């Protein structure tokens, strides 16, 4: 799919915030000089192509009772990654899961109500996927967190 300047502007705009108004697409469209129907059509096309995942509230983890979180690194045979990911992804507390180019080739983030629950979940997952090894890597200190919402650098295609 070839995305044009308007698509880029549109994504940039609705990533920042989406109006909580009766006719949000009309308002977004007005800002960008397109009509409501075109705004909906463009956003729908970008969604179908998977460039836009969804338009939704980004809920804070503490609001749903998650007080503990960690990053877990798993070392597992390449051919068992998908099977393991399927098991891991079924947990609601798992928000990100990536295959990575390292010895430890599967990395996921896990949230839980408490530290104890977090450790119990890791143990349970370990028993279910039977990996070569698992590392629990909780954040000890944050030096920088800059979520880049700027899409200036978005390229074609």
């Amino acid at each position: 799919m070839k995305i044009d300047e308007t698509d880029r502007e549109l994504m940039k705009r609705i990533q920042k915030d989406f109006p909580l108004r009766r006719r949000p697409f009309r308002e977004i469209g007005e800002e960008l000089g397109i009509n409501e129907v075109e705004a909906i059509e463009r956003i729908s096309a970008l969604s179908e192509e998977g460039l836009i995942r969804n338009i939704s509230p980004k809920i804070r983890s503490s609001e749903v009772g998650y007080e503990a979180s960690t990053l877990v690194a798993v070392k597992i045979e390449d051919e068992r990654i998908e099977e393991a990911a399927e098991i891991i992804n079924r947990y609601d507390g798992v928000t990100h899961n990536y295959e990575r180019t390292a010895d430890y080739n599967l990395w996921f983030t896990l949230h839980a109500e408490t530290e104890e629950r977090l450790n119990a979940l890791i143990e349970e997952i370990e028993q279910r996927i039977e990996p070569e090894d698992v590392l629990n890597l909780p954040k000890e200190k944050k030096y920088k967190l800059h979520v880049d919402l700027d899409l200036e650098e978005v390229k074609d295609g």
Partner: protein
Amino acid sequence: MDEIDRDILKEVQDGIPLVKRPYEEVASRLDLEEEEVLTRLEKLKDEGVYRRFGASLNHRKIGFKANAMVVWDIEEERVDEAGNIASAFEEVTHCYRRPKKEGKWDYSLYTMIHSDSKEKCEKIAEKIADSIGVEEEDYQAVYSTRELKKTGVRI
């Protein structure tokens, strides 16, 4: 948050419908008025229940830069200093300290580097290595090859 707030969040957390009046559609599914859904979503935002209401994009599909997780093996007493040095690079978007797992995974500093390409990410990592004063064998750039799950926190 009451039961209705939770019902509304559950209804919209995976995305609002892409129709002219999305909140009316959400309201009708819950047997509520459009106005009430809007008022409650505003209130939840003011209360900080969610950070922003907006689009989640798939940066990888859009062709948004390369993203390297560079991990560093730093002596215990220099981790903070190294973390501060790395954080000063604008291409570094996240920088965290995590426990070193001696003999298995000897890295305690994690930096996410965003740039136009893998090559550029590696150039930046080299610069950071020079600034911190670590050797090539003391760090590695790790890339994600497949996204197996990416979602927000769900209620």
